[in-house]
Structure formats: C-alpha cells, structure tokens
C-alpha cells in the first residue's frame, strides 16, 4: 500500500502516511483492527464464562460464621453450620431451634410442615450438627434468625439446604450428668441416655417440664414440647414411672435441662411403689418420700395470687383438719378433666399419691402430677355452729358451718383489682360473726352475697385483724338459703 492509500483505523480517512492522522489525531500504529478486537473479546468472554462456571461447580459450601452476621446482612442468603443447642419447638407448619458455632448463637426457623420433617427424619435434637442454607433476618433490636424453606439440593454444589448429622449417644446417669454440669460441662450439648423416675410435672403453655430423679434423690428436668403431639403419639407418662430415655443436654439460663426430641426416645422400664399409709400416720420417717393416701375430703381451699384473680394453689384436707394437708399447684389441677375437677370437692373420697414435706413445722403432702386421683362422690359438712359468738381462737383452723343473715358488708380495696369482702353474719340467736371472702373466691361466685341474704357458709376459722372470722375455701362453700 502506498503512502497515499494508508487509511486511519480510527476515522477511516486517508492519512497519506502521516502520523498521527491529520484528520482525527489518532496514532494508527497503536490501533488494533476491529477483527482482532472482536476475536479477543470472544476469547475473553469464553474464558471468563468458563472460569465462572467452573468456579461455581467446584466451589464448596462456605458457611458464614454466626458472629459475623451484622445489620447489613438482613435478607442475605447464607450457609450456616453449627450444633443444635435448644429445641426443637414444633408447630404444624414450622419448627425452630437454636444453632451455635464457635462465634455465636442463631435462631433457626424451618418453614416446612413438621409432619414432613418427621417423615424425612429431619427433626433435630440438641447435640446434632446441622448445615443449612436460608435467608437471614437481622432485626432492629439486634436479634438474628435464619429461615430455611426447602429441603432441596443446591443445584451448583449439590448440597442439601438442610443437613443433619446425628450426635453420638453418651450413656450416663443423672448423678454423673449433674456432677459434670457443675464441674466441666463436657456433656453440654451432647446427646445422652439416662434412666430416672418421674417425680414431678410442671405444665407450661407450650411444653411440659418433667422432673426425673434417681435413687439418690438427684434430679434433672426434662423439657417436652407440646408440639410433639402434632407429629407423633403422645406417651401417657405418669408420676413414679421409671423411664429410660435419650435426650439432648441443654441449658435453660444457667440451669441444666434435658430436651426431648421425640417420644420414640422414651421407654418405660419400671415404677416406684409409694408407701401406702394412713394420712394420720405421716411422720418424720416419711419426710421426702412418696406416699399413697386416701380419705374423705373435708375441706378444699383455693389460694389466689396477689397480682390478679388467678388461683395459685389448692389445698385439700382428708378426714380431719389436724391431718397433713394435701396441696397442688392450680396448673396441675387444671390438667384434670372437667368431670374430675367437679368431683374433687368436699365430701368426695379420694386416693392419691404425693410427696411428704414439712412447712413451718407441719407435714404436708404435695400432689405431684402427672396422675389421675381416684375419686368417689360423697357429702360432708363440718360441724354447724349455732351460736357464732362461740367461735373463738380455740377453733382456729377448724372447719365450721355457720348459718344466718348478712347484716353488714365492707370492702377491702386491692388496688386495681376487685376488692376482698368482709361480711357480718347474724345468726338465729342474734349473735354476730365475721365472714372473710378474698376476691379470688368472691369474684367467682355466680350469685355473690349481699346484705340481707340468708346464707349457709362452710369455712375455716381464721384470725383476721385481731379478731376471728370464717373464710370459705371455694365459692360453693357459700350458699344462699331461703
């Protein structure tokens, strides 16, 4: 090509051999031809894409350390790897638990039907290792959560989005477990098999806490989530049954707690037999022991809470007011069927198992669930005191029946709560006596008494404000008569 025919690759005009191009100022010697540039681009594109695909297909899962999660990672999709340290809490459409790695703790929500997770053996237990992929949520209060909504495999890495590796079982005893907890905590977040006897039950709204005890009196709590009932048959556990079970060693605050992931992990292997004794024969030798007692209920007293109108405890006296009283928390009483609750009244004959203890020098028997007392209907009314003026301190804590007309009332205010009430009852002899009705009982009366009513009241003689009063135990102890 002659000098005149040379073309500037930038502007396409003849340069006549001049450098730079007299038209656009470009240096034609430094330019690639379009063809070369296109070929280079294609090669780079192919190499780049190939590298990208190769990288993705050979990349391993890189779990995010829990401690590195910050506010900017809200809604980020990440892999998390760690050990299950609590739960599982089971709902119909999801399960939740906590996972811990070396850097922190994270809440996990698996938004899949719990029945399906059970079918696919994906219900985790404390101690299990998990690898999961999901979407992070970082809330304004700083709490964090990861949500997993698939059991599929990642199309690139082939890893399942929710993987469980079961923990190895450690055979131990309640004594060794408790000792370890206060020494090295080497069993914390491990899965253990232990044997113990159920000696108590504490019902929560979402779970039940069973107390397991060994022969030396060492105890441990076992947490059983109510949601297990959605995915398997609930085992009818009873007090004094000895069970052998596998559960995760978890913590509630700083307290040791076993977390049961399945009723399938429990087997009933025996039972403790309680001492059958007459309730009047309870003595120091029986203190701390379980006894089976029976007798006619001569008085029932419910004791309210100071914060609201809820009942806290319920006391029963069998055969005589001098006998040790039987008591139970209202939460245990509420576990009874409606029929049984209606039967557990003054006059009924009852047989139950409880644990003897001493309070303020007096023996008492704690009714520990889970159990169903046997009951027979009956009628009992304490001694009728015709002259209420004869009720004095010598009758303190006795149960009495009084009869008369309400002539006066006064309320004792309880802040924002409904008031307690004090009534003056005039008997047929014209004598006056006091009746004290706490708000827990008064507010439960279907037809509360007022001045002018004729009433028949069964109650316990109590000391109140320097005087003596009769306090009914339950609303039905106060009956209006014509």
């Amino acid at each position: 090509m002659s000098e005149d025919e040379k073309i500037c690759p930038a502007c396409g005009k003849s340069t006549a051999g001049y450098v730079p191009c007299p038209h656009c100022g470009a240096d034609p010697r430094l330019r690639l031809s379009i063809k070369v540039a296109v070929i280079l681009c294609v090669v780079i594109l192919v190499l780049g894409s190939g590298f990208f695909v190769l990288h993705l297909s050979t990349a391993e899962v890189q779990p995010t350390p829990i401690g590195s999660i910050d506010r900017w990672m809200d809604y980020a999709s990440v892999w998390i790897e760690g050990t299950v340290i609590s739960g599982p809490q089971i709902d119909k459409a999801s399960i939740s638990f906590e996972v811990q790695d070396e850097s922190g703790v994270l809440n996990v929500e698996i938004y899949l039907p719990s029945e399906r997770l059970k079918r696919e053996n994906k219900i985790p237990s404390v101690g299990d290792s998990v690898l999961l992929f999901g979407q992070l949520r970082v809330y304004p209060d700083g709490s964090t959560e990861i949500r997993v909504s698939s059991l599929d495999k990642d199309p690139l890495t082939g890893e399942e989005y929710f993987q469980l590796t079961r923990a190895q079982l450690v055979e131990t005893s309640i004594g060794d477990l408790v000792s370890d907890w206060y020494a090295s905590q080497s069993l914390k977040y491990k899965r253990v098999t232990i044997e113990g006897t159920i000696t108590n039950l504490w019902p929560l709204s979402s779970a039940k806490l069973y107390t397991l005890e060994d022969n030396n009196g060492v105890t441990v709590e076992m947490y059983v989530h109510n949601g297990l009932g959605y995915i398997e048959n609930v085992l009818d556990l009873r007090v004094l049954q000895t069970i052998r079970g596998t559960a995760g060693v978890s913590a509630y605050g700083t307290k040791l707690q076993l977390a049961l992931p399945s009723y399938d992990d429990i087997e009933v292997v025996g039972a403790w037999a309680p001492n059958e004794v007459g309730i009047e024969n309870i003595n120091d030798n029986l203190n701390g022991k379980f006894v089976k007692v029976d007798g006619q209920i001569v008085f029932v007293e419910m004791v309210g809470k100071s914060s609201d109108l809820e009942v806290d405890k319920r006391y029963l006296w069998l055969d005589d007011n001098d006998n040790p009283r039987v008591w139970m928390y209202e939460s245990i009483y509420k576990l009874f069927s409606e029929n049984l609750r209606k039967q557990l009244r003054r006059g009924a004959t009852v047989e139950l198992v409880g644990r003897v203890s001493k309070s303020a020098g007096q023996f008492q028997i704690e009714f520990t669930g889970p159990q169903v007392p046997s009951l027979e209907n009956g009628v009992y009314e304490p001694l009728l005191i015709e002259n209420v003026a004869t009720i004095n301190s010598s009758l303190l804590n006795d149960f009495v029946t009084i009869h008369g007309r309400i002539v006066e009332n006064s309320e004792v205010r309880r802040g924002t709560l409904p008031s307690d009430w004090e009534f003056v009852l005039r008997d047929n002899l014209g004598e006056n006596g006091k009746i004290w009705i706490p708000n827990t009982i008064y507010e439960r009366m279907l037809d509360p008494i007022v001045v002018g009513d004729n009433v028949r009241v069964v109650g316990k003689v109590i000391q109140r404000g320097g005087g003596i009063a009769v306090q009914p135990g339950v609303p039905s102890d106060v009956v209006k008569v014509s």
Partner: protein
Amino acid sequence: MGILFLYVDLHSANIVVKNPPTVALSEIEPTMNMAQVYIQGKATFVKYYEDTRFLGMFVSDDAGNSIFIRAYDAETLRLIEMEKQRLAEGSSEPKFPAVGDIVTIRGQLRVRPDFKMMILQYAEGLEIERPLENRVTIAQMVSNPENFGEYQRLEIGWDENNPVKIISSTDRGWATMLTLYEMASESSTTLIVPKTLTRFGRTLEAKVGDTIRVKGAFQLYFTEPQLWLASWDDLR
C-alpha cells in the same frame, strides 16, 4: 382520542380494560407471575409488622392451598385509617383483616417455584366478610375442641346466667392475653388481643374482674383453646 377512549373504557364501557379474572389458589402457577387477579379464601394468619409497617397475611382455601398477601406501608396505613373511620362511624363492615375472615383480594401475583405471593396494591382491593359467630360456652370449647374448626368465629359470655369474667391480663408485647373464666363451669380460656388493634383509635379498657361478652376466632395453641379478638366491636 386514544387516551380519551381508554379513560372512558376504564370507567364505564370496559371494552378493552376488563376486570381481572378470579383464580382459585390451586390454579396459580409461575406463568401467572405479575398478573392482576382476584383471589378469595380464609385469612389464616394476619400480622402487622411494627418495624416495616407492612401487612402480612396468609389466605387459604379448603383444600389447604395458601398464598401470602403483602400490603406495603402506605396501603397498610390506609387500611388502618379506614378501619379507624369505620369504628368511629359504627359501621359493621370491617376494613382491616383478622384471622378467620373470608377475604376477596385484587392484587398482583408474584409466583416463584416454591412460593406464591400477592401484592395488595390498593387498600380498596381488599374486601372482608367476617363470618357470623356461633354461641358457645367456654366449657364446650375446652372439653371438646375437636368440634370447632380452626379460626371459626365463636361468641362467649352471651348468657347472663353464665357470665364470663376476666381473671388475669398479661402483656406479651405483641398482644395482651386475657384469661377468661366462666363462672358456671369453672372453665377458663385465653383471649388474644393483638397490639395492632390499638392502632384503630382505641385501647383495651376491660380490666381484671370485668364481666365480658366477646366474639373471636377459635384456635388451638397446641392443646389449649384460645380466641383471637378481631375488632373492638367484638368486645363488650
């Protein structure tokens, strides 16, 4: 001319601009992504998100198909204002949804292979039918919970001879839980008063010791029957 035609068509003639179709929840599939449709079903989860001010809701049909409904903050605020106004005027047509309501929603679908969602773009696109309640006793609820459907509307405390009292109140943050006690049967249940209701211009005035009559949607919290309060006019 074209714009004028579209305007007239939109408001009356509906020759080109037609109402979106109503689709069953079971029919929704990925090819419908971004489509404007009507859906109908029962609200089985309703939540007002305090942090984002969004409304979230699951709507389900009898066969168990469900879709998540989302209203963003502006439309959620409008729904709240509409409900506030409705209560002030004493109208009986609810504007803000609650569990158990039968809802008809016009919105835009967002369909993913494993997730169905609809965006409620206009507050007016939500129509609510609150089913009539059945009168029951707490004893019936507690002793035979299997007799009631999930989120079935029930009324308790309607019998003057069998009053229902509030015996405790617990603030759980997202809701106030009232324990209701039925005098005759000595049975109790929990009434959930969602905090969202306080956005409708009123607060919970009932206190411990009050006798109440209430309508709510039935649910089982594991084995424990509970009622959800849908609106202030359901509580007396």
